[in-house]
């Protein structure tokens, strides 16, 4: 990501400002009704405070200053320095109204208005001073009595008429840009879009059918016109003289009777005219269909956009999935006496919620294998001349409609010799079989083969690489391994969403099936004589190499079509590290379609990954090629892949303001840091517990659940965490806060809105960065 421009930050600001403004609005109303509960005022205070911080980050200084003043008023209320008298509550409400107006203006894209500020602040100060001086020695019963008095006062004076001007009547503030929504509703919408897409495809099909009919009529019309013209030419002029010779009967007619032929003449001319009219109409019809076609296509495009937007709504950041591996990696490393650095990149890559959930298990298996078997102990690493700590990198990036995930370790690599021995001992291969390194490596996907001699505690709980491969293929994904003595990389490609699938439709016999496009390498025509290596079509020649293939109709027992031809098509697919081909009778089309998961009753038929319904209501099954070729080894092709760029360090940003988290993240990510975020102290502390590799903590002080001071205290108490430097990032500029934070153990103190250079200086101090 990296570049987060100001307009994007403003979006975040508006989203969160809405929440705070609504909290304040409700709270101020409560105050008006005389509810002066301390916890309530505390909440209001925090809302004003966070609003101030968020506004400062996007440099909306008027909002910042007004909310700062609100914070002052609320603080005085909180500390019982004054009472929530009617003027006090009035000025709070009025300030909030101004803030609402300002935010509304920003949401509409106007610059922030500044002229209201000074007058308002002066008024507010006057009210505060008055209220404070009017305050008697505070004691609890008195406060309650005063509150009651206030309550009585406000009930007498309608809010609309207070002296700060007319109050807005709507208490719910809403700029109209953000709402929260139930994910299941999104699911429903996607289903609906799916049905509309099916209807649209049906419409296109029907239109095509109608066009064919129009063509036929057009053709018939032309024939009719031709016939009529011929007829007319033949009889119109020649009749009077020639007809006698053609038909002896006609010779009986006298000259006077020839006017009948004139009628015939007229009739043929009329026919000609009508036929021309029909043709004219058909031409118009054809134009209509052209335009109609275009419009349906436009609907299609809009549907695609709509679907894309809605699909995006249920996408999750993959970083949340990667985060779940941090703890197990740490525990497993500790169990096996290893020290492992876990690095995560591309956390913000988004992936469909459904895929997100199904990826955990297979990825966990690969991660476990890497920690338990791939990475060596410190002694072994040192003896090999490697760095003492093993490194495990989880990375993700978007590539078109797919997401590429890589799990990479710098361990000893997969022992292919061991795999080969196992395969031989299980009679899967002969001892003298010549296998390339890649072929040996692909044995890892054969069920039952493993590099670990015994099912130990760690990998014994796993599912086996064959199952990993199946799980990935069930998600229409592919897996590839890059292996050497210096480490192993698993490269997984999966579609970023399962909602709509781009698929190739093919025909076997009279039935149609689909294969998802993202696993297809290429579709080629094959000629039985030259390309088919084995007569049973179990192997074909593909670009000079022999690859495994299957003749679909025969394997699936689909009855042959009447027009069985010798030329077939091979759909070449990428599956678990190899290329294979499905030979089909005919490839029909590529289309975007809604694939529904297979009915549970049929789920054992894992050669299908789902079913779809075509435009005309035909049920078609989606074929999973990986499952067809399961448990068989074949040649492998490998590609190079880019190495993840080294990171500068891992920083945990703790702030309850989304704007600040986003801003700090983008600032740090641009400088190659890996950023973890938490919205309060407790969340941060949990992340710290699960994560060994945090180099720096940046924290706010005022936060819900657990505030910054407590977080600093807890970190400094922890033997494991106490050495992590803590930078305090706060809008509390007073020295007492600074002193308190620094004495609690913070190493730096930064006042929001912070200056980028100051932050850079602090980072440089902790990370030895080049300027």
């Amino acid at each position, binding site marked *: 990501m990296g570049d987060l421009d100001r307009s994007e930050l403003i979006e975040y600001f508006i989203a969160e400002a809405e929440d705070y403004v609504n909290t304040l609005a409700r709270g101020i109303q409560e105050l008006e009704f005389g509810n002066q509960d301390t916890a309530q005022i505390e909440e209001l205070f925090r809302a004003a405070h966070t609003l101030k911080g968020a506004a400062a980050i996007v440099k909306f200084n008027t909002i910042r200053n007004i909310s700062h003043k609100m914070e002052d008023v609320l603080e005085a209320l909180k500390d019982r320095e004054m009472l929530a008298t009617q003027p006090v509550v009035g000025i709070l409400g009025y300030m909030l109204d101004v803030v609402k107006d300002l935010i509304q203006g920003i949401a509409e894209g106007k610059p922030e208005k500044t002229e209201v500020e000074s007058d308002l602040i002066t008024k507010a100060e006057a009210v505060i001073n008055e209220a404070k001086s009017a305050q008697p020695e505070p004691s609890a019963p008195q406060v309650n009595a005063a509150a009651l008095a206030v309550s009585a006062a406000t009930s007498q004076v309608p809010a609309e008429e207070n002296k700060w001007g007319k109050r807005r009547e709507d208490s719910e503030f809403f700029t109209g840009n953000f709402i929260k929504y139930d994910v299941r509703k999104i699911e429903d919408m996607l*289903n609906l879009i*799916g*049905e509309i897409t*099916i209807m649209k495809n049906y419409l296109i099909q029907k239109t095509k059918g109608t066009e064919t009919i129009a063509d036929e009529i057009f053709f018939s019309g032309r024939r009719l016109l031709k016939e009529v013209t011929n007829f007319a030419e033949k009889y119109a002029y020649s009749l009077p003289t020639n007809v006698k010779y053609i038909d002896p009967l006609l010779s009986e007619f006298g000259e006077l009777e020839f006017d009948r032929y004139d009628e015939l003449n007229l009739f043929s001319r009329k026919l000609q005219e009508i036929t021309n009219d029909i043709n004219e109409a058909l031409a118009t019809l054809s134009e209509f269909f052209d335009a109609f076609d275009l419009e349906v296509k436009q609907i299609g495009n809009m549907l695609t956009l709509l679907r894309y937007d809605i699909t995006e709504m249920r996408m999750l950041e993959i970083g949340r999935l990667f985060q779940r591996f941090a703890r197990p990696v740490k525990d497993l490393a500790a169990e096996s006496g290893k020290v492992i650095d876990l690095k995560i990149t591309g956390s913000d890559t988004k992936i469909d919620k459904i895929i997100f959930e199904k990826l955990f298990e297979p990825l966990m298996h690969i991660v476990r294998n890497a920690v338990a078997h791939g990475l060596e102990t410190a002694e072994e690493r040192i003896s090999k001349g490697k760095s003492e700590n093993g490194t495990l990198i989880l990375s993700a990036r978007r590539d078109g409609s797919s997401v590429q995930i890589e799990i990479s370790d710098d361990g000893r690599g997969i022992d292919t010799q061991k795999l080969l021995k196992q395969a031989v001992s299980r009679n899967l291969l002969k001892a003298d079989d010549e296998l390339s390194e890649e072929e040996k490596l692909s044995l890892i996907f054969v069920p039952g083969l493993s590099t670990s001699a015994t099912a130990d505690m760690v990998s014994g709980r796993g599912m086996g690489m064959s199952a990993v491969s199946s799980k990935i293929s069930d998600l229409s994904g592919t897996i590839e391994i890059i292996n050497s003595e210096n480490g192993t990389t698993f490269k997984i490609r999966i579609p970023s969403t399962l909602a709509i699938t781009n698929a190739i439709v093919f025909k076997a016999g009279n*039935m149609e099936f689909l294969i998802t496009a993202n696993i297809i390498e290429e579709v080629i025509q094959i000629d039985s004589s030259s390309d088919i290596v084995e007569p049973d079509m179990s192997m074909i020649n593909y670009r000079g190499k022999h690859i495994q293939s299957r003749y679909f109709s025969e394997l*699936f*027992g*689909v009855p042959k079509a009447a027009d069985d031809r010798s030329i077939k098509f091979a759909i070449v697919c990428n599956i678990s590290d190899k290329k294979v081909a499905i030979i089909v009778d005919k490839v029909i089309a590529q289309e975007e379609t*809604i694939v*529904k998961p*297979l*009915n*549970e*009753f*049929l*789920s*054992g*038929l*894992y*050669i299908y990954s789902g*079913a*779809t*319904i075509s435009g005309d*209501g*035909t*049920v078609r*099954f989606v074929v999973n090629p990986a499952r067809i070729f399961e448990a068989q080894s074949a040649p492998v092709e490998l590609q190079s892949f880019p190495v993840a760029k080294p990171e500068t360090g891992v920083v945990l940003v703790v702030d309850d303001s989304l704007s600040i988290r986003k801003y700090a993240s983008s600032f740090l990510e641009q400088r190659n840091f890996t950023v973890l975020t938490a919205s309060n102290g407790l969340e941060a502390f949990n992340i710290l517990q699960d994560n060994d590799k945090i180099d720096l903590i940046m924290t706010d002080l005022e936060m819900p659940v657990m505030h910054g001071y407590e977080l600093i205290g807890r970190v400094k108490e922890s033997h494991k965490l106490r050495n992590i430097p803590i930078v305090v990032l706060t809008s509390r500029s007073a020295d007492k806060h600074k002193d308190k934070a620094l004495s609690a153990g913070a190493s730096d103190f930064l006042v929001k809105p912070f200056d980028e250079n100051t932050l850079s200086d602090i980072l440089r101090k902790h990370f030895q960065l080049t300027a």
Partner: protein
Amino acid sequence: MNMTKEKSETDSHIDDVTYNVFKVGEKEFLLPVDTVREIIDVSRIFPIPMAPDYIFGAVPLHGGRVIPAIDLSKIHPTGEPLYSSAKLVVVNAGKENIGFLSETIPYLVSFSPDIPVDGLINVEEFFETYRVKGPWHGRP
């Protein structure tokens, strides 16, 4: 045309259990009425290559879902069925639906719960027993 189930209120006692009765060949099968979701006309059933023989094919439902149509004559000795104007009795099995082919429009019947009934299908049990275990697998 969809015919939703309708509990017949006439001459049934409060404690009686109501069943949906459908016919395959010579045999009648009973389903507890609350397991039946709907009864639909099937004009087209699509073959499922690799499925066991008791799965006649796949039938599309509304919303793009596809359910299996089960031919009970391949499981029980019923005699040759006549599915020419078949109905599909769609039943709820957990979160899923499956369908049983019937030669006739099913009808409702109520019995006192202590009368043992013949040909009763326990949907959950059926689902677990006959769900497809794998391709090339055949019947359980």
